[in-house]
């Protein structure tokens, strides 16, 4: 991260964004998508009469520095797709996504974790994925090692870790890098019990330090506690956008 990035206020602009997934490979994965899309009535056909799933339809959202967004909606509403579009992973079929500021997206707790490498090697590799300098790598290692409490396991391969140790390492790594814009899926809100309290504090510190948070979640208490604005997605469209109280009441009223 350069100094220039730091000085400018973070901003996310999503203009008229639509995401379409053509279904190419009729394998298990595609069939799952197809079934899910049929269930949520998002199937369509493109010009070449291929089956396409419309994950997002003409979404426009502006997010300013300081905002904490909660993305809610049922399964297949497009929450994760929207996170991926903002992160620049999926380039939209139409519309524009603009982001200003450093960005990190937490979707997969085991991202880039290699079971044959030691904890230390995994930390090092993750740091390289983020383009960290040598001193920053050292700091990352110290930070993650002390949080994950792996002690002598740090130099042993991941494959022999207990489930709890893997979770701690994954969580510590994911939350060690502080961006200006943080996009999160809700996986990290689960963890083993003893570790939860500490994880919570760490997560709160991370969230407090970022300028923009976009959180896709199902958990109402988390949204009420953290978010300043809630966006309700339904079948790829924005159904409601406003303060948590209003939107949540509407959502939970309808889903009951």
């Amino acid at each position, binding site marked *: 991260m350069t100094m220039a990035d730091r000085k400018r206020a973070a901003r996310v602009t999503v203009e008229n964004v639509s995401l379409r997934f053509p279904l190419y490979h009729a394998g298990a994965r595609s069939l799952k998508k197809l079934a899910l899309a049929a269930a949520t009535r998002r199937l369509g056909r493109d010009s070449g009469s291929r089956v396409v799933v419309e994950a997002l339809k003409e979404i426009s959202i502006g997010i300013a520095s300081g905002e904490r967004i909660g993305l809610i909606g049922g399964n297949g509403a497009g929450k994760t797709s929207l996170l991926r579009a903002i992160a*620049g992973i999926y380039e939209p079929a139409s519309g524009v996504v603009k982001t200003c500021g450093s960005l990190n*997206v937490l979707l997969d707790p085991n991202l880039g974790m290699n079971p044959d*490498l030691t904890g230390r090697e995994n930390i090092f590799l993750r740091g*390289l994925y983020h383009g960290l300098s040598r001193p920053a790598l050292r700091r990352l290692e110290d930070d993650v090692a002390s949080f994950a409490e792996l002690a002598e396991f740090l130099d042993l391969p991941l494959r022999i870790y207990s489930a709890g140790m893997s979770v701690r390492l994954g969580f510590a790594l994911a939350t060690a890098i502080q961006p200006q814009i943080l996009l999160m899926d809700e996986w990290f809100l689960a963890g083993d019990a003893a570790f939860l309290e500490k994880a919570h504090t760490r997560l709160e510190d991370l969230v407090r330090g970022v300028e923009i948070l976009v959180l896709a979640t199902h958990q109402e208490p988390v949204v009420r506690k953290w978010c300043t604005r809630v966006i309700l997605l339904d079948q790829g469209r924005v159904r409601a956008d406003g303060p948590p109280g209003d939107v949540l009441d509407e959502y939970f009223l309808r889903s009951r």
Partner: protein
Amino acid sequence: MTAAGKAAWRDLAGGLKLWRLVWALGWLDIRLRYRGSVLGPLWLTLSTAVMVAALGGLYAGLFRLQAADYVPHLAVSLVLWNSVAGQVTESCSVFVQQEPVIRSMRMPFWVHAGRVLLRNLLVLAHNALVLVPVFLLFGIFPGVQALLVLPAMALWVVDGFLLALALGAICARFRDISPIVSSVAQLAFFVTPVIWKPELIGARAALLALNPFHALLEIMRAPLLGEPAGVAVWASALAYSFFLVAGSWALFVRARPRLAYWV
């Protein structure tokens, strides 16, 4: 330049900035492949050495060639061909294999292509050790000619890189391509002078100009054996490379925005 072209250049610039990651990933692939084995990547060297010894004895007899003439040619050709074939076949899985990373973080696609290229260069470096005893045994000292390996190597790196991007993208979109590529690579092994020498087919050697693998192999092989590669061979290698690079780049520019959807 179009917006898609600019985005592809940004992808390249971003990828170059992450060279330390590419380096670490390339080495990692090698290390993991041979984790727990005593010889490690030297197994590659050993298996190539055995192949050179076995084929050298057999085919020198079959083709009625002098061992001193044939074995160095075979050793250099095999080492180089293994690298070409490895790069071609592994190019197919460049993006498909990295699906979890591609779908969960923003990462220049060049990183994945660079990783495969580097991995193959490291394999080549290990295999090349076979040439040392062969050269000593048959008293071959390429001398200054060998310096021509450097520009040839540079051309290989550029070609291999773009091939990885293009084949990786095509194979992500059309899953049937990668078995086709493997069969083509196998076919190419037989129609390219790797285990045989161009002199053996007489007048038909002129047809070799149509084989892009021949020119690309020859610009590396000739200087290693201390012979000049010749202007014609270099011209043809450069021409084939030009088409490969231009075609691959055009393909990558078009495919890049859709790659995350395809993998």
